[in-house]
């Protein structure tokens, strides 16, 4: 069962996870270096550990819907990532899984997926926009997705809009002063650096789009 271009079904979800595992492995050093500057130099390792495990699980686990795949990812991240990112991404994928039970995701479903993920991150981490966390990537991504849907984009178009907004959102964290997470200990010295979790959010969304186009 391989993914059909432009169709966001369970095959796409599986491909997404594999693509995410490859992309996170490629970004491992970059993420770790970002975290070395304002955190504790483990974000790349945490994410890589989690997504390699998720990719291995997803390969032959039974899954009927996108939601089934995302739930498996959620549970795997929860039990392998640790750190702040583990429960945050774990909850994001768990919430996203709940709203992606359709056989194939349409524009509305993609928006729902992103909004649920964002809600999950906020529910766990209690961060608002501007605190220099992954929320600064997820929030504009979900908003841009909704706008694109309203403007008539298809599911892939919605994803594309989300990715672009996430990229801008991640970039916007550079000048911010962190007030949540480990980077907040640095006070003003946290300014001038890209937030690692915002960057990994971009990597994951890029993998989702790549999988849709594969």
């Amino acid at each position, binding site marked *: 069962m391989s993914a059909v271009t432009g169709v966001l079904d369970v095959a796409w979800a599986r491909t997404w996870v594999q693509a995410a595992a490859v992309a996170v492995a490629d970004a491992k050093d970059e993420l770790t270096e970002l975290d*070395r500057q304002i955190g504790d130099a483990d974000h790349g390792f945490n994410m890589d550990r989690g997504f390699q495990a998720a990719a291995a699980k997803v390969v032959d686990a039974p899954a009927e819907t996108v939601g089934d795949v995302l739930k498996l990812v959620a549970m795997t991240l929860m039990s392998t990532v640790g750190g702040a990112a583990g429960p945050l991404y774990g909850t994001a994928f768990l919430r996203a899984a709940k709203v992606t039970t359709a056989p194939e995701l349409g524009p509305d479903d993609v928006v729902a997926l992103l909004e649920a993920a964002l809600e999950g991150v906020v529910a766990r981490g209690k961060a608002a926009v501007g605190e220099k966390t992954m929320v600064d990537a997820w929030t504009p991504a979900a908003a841009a997705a909704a706008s694109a849907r309203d403007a008539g984009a298809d599911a892939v178009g919605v994803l594309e809009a989300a990715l672009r907004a996430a990229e801008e959102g991640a970039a916007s964290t550079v000048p911010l002063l962190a007030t949540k997470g480990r980077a907040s*200990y*640095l*006070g003003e*010295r946290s300014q001038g650096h890209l937030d690692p979790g915002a960057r990994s959010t971009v990597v994951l969304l890029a993998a989702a789009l790549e999988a849709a186009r594969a």
Partner: protein
Amino acid sequence: MKKLLNDPAQAVDESVEGFGLAHADLVEVRTDPLFVVRRQRPPHGTVAVVSGGGAGHEPLHAGFVGEGMLDAAVPGAVFTSPTPDQVGAAFVAADAGGGVLAIVKNYTGDVLNFETAAELADAEGVTVRTVLVHDDVAVEDSLYTAGRRGVGGTVMVEKIAGAAAARGDDLDAVAALAERASAAVRSMGVALHAPTVPHVGRPSFDLADDEIEIGIGIHGEPGRHRIPMASADEITKMLVEPVADDLGLANGEKVLLFVNGMGGTPPSELYVVYRAARRLLEERGVTVERSLVGSYVTSLEMQGCSVTVMRLDDELTGLWDAPVHTPALRW
């Protein structure tokens, strides 16, 4: 990077395995998921005290598993909070029917993972109460941060809670004493040289040959500010003053003074700092009633130290003095 290890990805597992072999009289190491639990189970109904966090701070936490302190400890990857399944399994394994007091160092990762783990344990009928350790005065303003970090004071909170549990206090009482210990303890640290996380392979931050980092945490995160190298007396003053001020220590008060090594600093230097810290406290009219000097809350091989002060009252002193028999702390 030169370290005594094999595959960095296996370092924590191998180290904990070695720890379990060396201290098989006191602890048992469980794998899948990984945690350390006391070999001698306490009497039924006793409150279990459980802690955990990223590896790289040894002997914290596993070194404090045993009689009169922790019932279980959960190591994550290096500097990375353990996962909820690990922590949840430790909660369930340690519970002796009296419920579990979880002692959590205040880091977003630890808080989130322990929170989720408590939900898991609750689903299995195990009651978990949580006490946060947030003793690091280097994190100045908790409104604009994730709150103060938990550092050296964790040893005090774990010892007090463990002693309360060992004498038979119920979960509410153990939690209340742990909170009191947590509220009474403050710390501040300095780094002379950054640690190197095994899988990263280079120092977590860069310090010039004549620079030190004041207000350092224990995860290789940079501190609050960087200053030129100074004498032990001067450095100690920069650690003790904010701690004593924040505690509001007054003339005539009694304290426990803990000078903690960060992993790469030998005892001889810690005692020079202890001497200076003690003088500074005595100058304030504060009496050092209890002392602890050694490397108990480390940051891999980081060079540097932290100073922890806990305000003592008779009950806390008694609980501190109560017998403890663990790999790293014993009396």
